[in-house]
């Protein structure tokens, strides 16, 4: 099956790696790539949610990019190093001002750390520390996206992204799901989507919606 050409700009190299040429990167794409390269130093991560569809051409914007993160070593050290590093690269946390506050207040209260470029609020990256089985699965089964040969992002599995969009259930979310499904129909496993949908506690027959 692999390698498989999805479009003239997207090639599935194998089940965990997509090669993507995107001629015009938006401010959002540049932000996602830059902040992900900092996060990646201390955390394994997977981008989930609306930005995955946007990365692959969905015609809408978003204010925030959802990251599920898992520290590579001790959480405390990872947070301390992350805050040192974001300072170096001209980012800031818009809601958890420093590492100590993040560790004492934000994380115990399950407040997700939000990172943005200095002097900006939008766009921002919302960091969720993995806690549920599906969070861990998002990271373990993540896909590597090589963009324009030399830049990288990791996204959660397409099937789980689509299923979660059904869980959220708004018009925008179903549109995101349809966009991803129709773009990647050759490599998406419908049974896996239905399985995730069931795990999320939904009684939805995805075949009613996932038509291209």
């Amino acid at each position: 099956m692999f390698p498989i050409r999805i479009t003239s700009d997207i090639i599935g190299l194998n089940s965990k790696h997509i090669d993507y040429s995107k001629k015009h990167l938006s401010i959002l794409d540049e932000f996602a790539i830059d902040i992900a390269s900092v996060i990646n130093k201390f955390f394994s991560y997977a981008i989930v949610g609306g930005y995955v569809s946007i990365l692959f051409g969905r015609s809408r914007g978003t204010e925030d990019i959802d990251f599920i993160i898992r520290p590579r070593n001790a959480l405390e050290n990872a947070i301390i190093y992350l805050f040192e590093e974001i300072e170096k690269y001209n980012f800031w946390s818009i809601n958890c001002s420093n590492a100590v506050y993040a560790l004492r207040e934000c994380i115990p209260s399950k407040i997700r750390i939000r990172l943005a470029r200095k002097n900006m609020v939008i766009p921002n990256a919302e960091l969720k520390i993995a806690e549920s089985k599906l969070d861990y699965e998002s990271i373990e089964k993540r896909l590597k996206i090589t963009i324009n040969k030399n830049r990288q992002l990791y996204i959660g599995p397409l099937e789980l992204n689509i299923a979660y969009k059904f869980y959220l259930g708004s018009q925008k979310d179903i549109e995101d799901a349809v966009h991803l499904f129709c773009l990647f129909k050759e490599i998406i496993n419908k049974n896996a989507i239905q399985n995730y949908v069931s795990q999320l506690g939904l009684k939805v027959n995805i075949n009613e919606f996932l038509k291209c």
Partner: protein
Amino acid sequence: MNSSNAKNKLDKQRLDFVRFWVEYIRKMSSDIWSKQQKELIDAMIKSANQNLKEYLRVKMIAKKIAKKLRDEKRAH
């Protein structure tokens, strides 16, 4: 969410546009479509209100509403 409820509340024309746009992306080079997407997204970000207090307040309210809706859904 069950299938019939979801179907009733969805705007079919918007979904059809999504399908149309995906086909466009599949057929055209990213040179063409990503330029359009970049213009849309960059304009949105450049015109966004960067007021931190207001942004966090809206996020907090939205989170509470979403939680309430989810709880209500579970209760039914």
